[in-house]
């Protein structure tokens, strides 16, 4: 992908707004879980906002995405609402699965979840890409089949790679490498931690996914690649989650607090974007503060409305 990128000021502000709202949404989920209003499993994407937000802004509304359980921002951005996501986690009627699915089972017409079994979503993604090809949509649309560093060792992922390459499917495989599969570091689970290389003949690109703009650029490139008949591509998004694997994991027994602090202070996607926007004179700081405040209000309102919704 080219190292030069063009983004409009307005879009940059939108991206910032989305990122902040997603961060706030996940933080609200964290609080609601601790208050025991959200039960069951809850896997938060705090720290990984650049992936969902960057991807969303690089593709069309009707491109398809499928991922595993760390899915709340994708669900909200790709045709859902913050209220819908929160209500779903609370198990209410206003939830996107009418309260019956919970955290891992949220869907929209272009977002295929939200999947519990690790790795199982990847062949599904290849299938969705096949459908696009079959229906003649593949010169304009692609499918993004996402999975993590832990899932990358599942046999079915390689089966999906082969089918996608063999049949030239418009499938972009996206390995969201947040360096830890639950409590196991990438090096302890994978003989080859260069996840972007594991697609064999499928070309791969490694992306600094703590930077929204890098993600956007890479995803745009990937989409152009697969929709011009070149077949699948593999993107490795190198990112980081501040929280544990899920709400039952403190996230500190397998990595140091210093490491987490370091990532937060020097690599945070939102802070990074904010600094760029200010540096480039896109907006005044006051404007960004306003967006922060609005995001908090939007999420708070969504939480209240979600709480008011009845159980199914």
């Amino acid at each position, binding site marked *: 992908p080219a190292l030069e990128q063009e983004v409009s000021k307005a879009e940059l502000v939108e991206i910032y707004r989305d990122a902040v709202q997603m961060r706030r949404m996940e933080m609200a989920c964290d609080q609601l879980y601790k208050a025991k209003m959200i*039960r*069951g*499993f809850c896997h938060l994407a705090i720290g990984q906002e650049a992936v969902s937000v960057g991807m969303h802004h690089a593709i069309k509304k009707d491109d398809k995405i499928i991922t595993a359980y760390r899915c709340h921002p994708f669900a909200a951005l790709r045709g859902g609402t913050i209220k819908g996501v929160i209500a779903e986690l609370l*198990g209410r009627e206003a939830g996107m699965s009418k*309260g*019956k*699915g*919970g955290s*891992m*089972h949220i869907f929209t017409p272009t977002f295929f979840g939200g999947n*519990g*079994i*690790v*790795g199982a979503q990847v062949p599904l993604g290849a299938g969705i890409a096949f459908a696009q090809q079959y229906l003649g949509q593949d010169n304009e649309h692609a499918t993004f089949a996402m999975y993590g560093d*832990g*899932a990358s*060792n*599942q*046999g*079915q992922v390689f089966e999906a790679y082969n089918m996608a390459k063999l049949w030239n499917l418009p499938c972009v495989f996206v390995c969201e490498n947040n360096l830890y*599969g*639950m*409590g*196991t570091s990438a090096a*302890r*689970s*994978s003989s080859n931690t260069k996840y972007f290389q594991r697609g064999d003949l499928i070309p791969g690109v490694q992306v600094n996914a703590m930077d929204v703009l890098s993600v956007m650029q890479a995803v745009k490139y990937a989409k152009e690649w697969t929709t011009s008949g070149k077949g699948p591509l593999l993107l490795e998004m190198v990112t980081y989650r501040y929280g544990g694997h899920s709400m039952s994991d403190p996230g500190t*027994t397998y990595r140091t607090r210093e490491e987490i602090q370091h990532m937060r202070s020097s690599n945070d996607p939102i802070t990074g974007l904010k600094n760029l926007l200010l540096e480039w004179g896109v907006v005044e700081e006051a404007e960004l503060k306003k967006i922060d405040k609005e995001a908090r209000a939007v999420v708070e309102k969504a939480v209240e409305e979600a709480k008011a919704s009845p*159980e*199914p």
Partner: protein
Amino acid sequence: GETQKMNLFQSITSALDNALAKDPTAVVFGEDVAFGGVFRCTVGLRDKYGKDRVFNTPLCEQGIVGFGIGIAVTGATAIAEIQFADYIFPAFDQIVNEAAKYRYRSGDLFNCGNLTIRAPWGCVGHGALYHSQSPEAFFAHCPGIKVVIPRSPLQAKGLLLSCIEDKNPCIFFEPKILYRAAVEQVPIEPYNIPLSQAEVLQTGSDVTMVAWGTQVHVIKEVATMAQEKLGVSCEVIDLRTILPWDTETVCKSVAKTGRLLISHEAPLTGGFASEISSTVQEECFLNLEAPITRVCGYDTPFPHIFEPFYIPDKWKCYDALRKMINY
């Protein structure tokens, strides 16, 4: 011998400890077992026995079981952990087509009897679709393996050690809801509880109730309710081994009582209760006073928010029992 207060996961650790101590070829592996496991079943084992005997695998269930079969075939004792029974399905082919058929298709030249697969099983209150399943029925349909489910720490240790020593590949499902909740005095030294032997926990004359794992405790409570409210005397049986199951004990009991209630969390259709029901009606047809009744989960994926409505609780069982008595 000397006993110690242990909960279910501690009794499992104790069994594994005994196995690793007694059998120098024994190895324990699976996802996250090295630090002690997500349910603490393997705490301390790596420190005690070393990293070449207690080790983590990557996230690949099919690989874990296939790899385990390989170890077992060479004569070493393989104890594989699948992190949740819900995740066992990528390994289904390895279990059904490879492990179960090994001895048969090699004319007994080779076998993988040294393989034991352990997995947390059953509902836990908040598990939803993928952390609550009871898949014993899928494996009951597979000649060549054994399937065992304990109801308590004391049972678990003895049954697990029997599985490990059994000359056939065994699947051992551990009721995860009981890991911390169930506590008993358990011997520190190894001991065995025989496989394929059901246990009659309480004798009775009017109704036979059969269950396994967590559900045994539910039907025990129902038996007390039946005695108090209806004056009905129940015989309560813990099946313990699902495959091969103890047809003799169950049929003998139903021949005596004439009524049978079977209960399990797993969905009704094709659940193991259907196998028991079919065999019992063949063997005890003329003894039956009422149709055999099954109180099971509904034919839906295991729900998240609807779990309390889904599980075959004591009221559903009691109600079914009442209908049987009044038939």
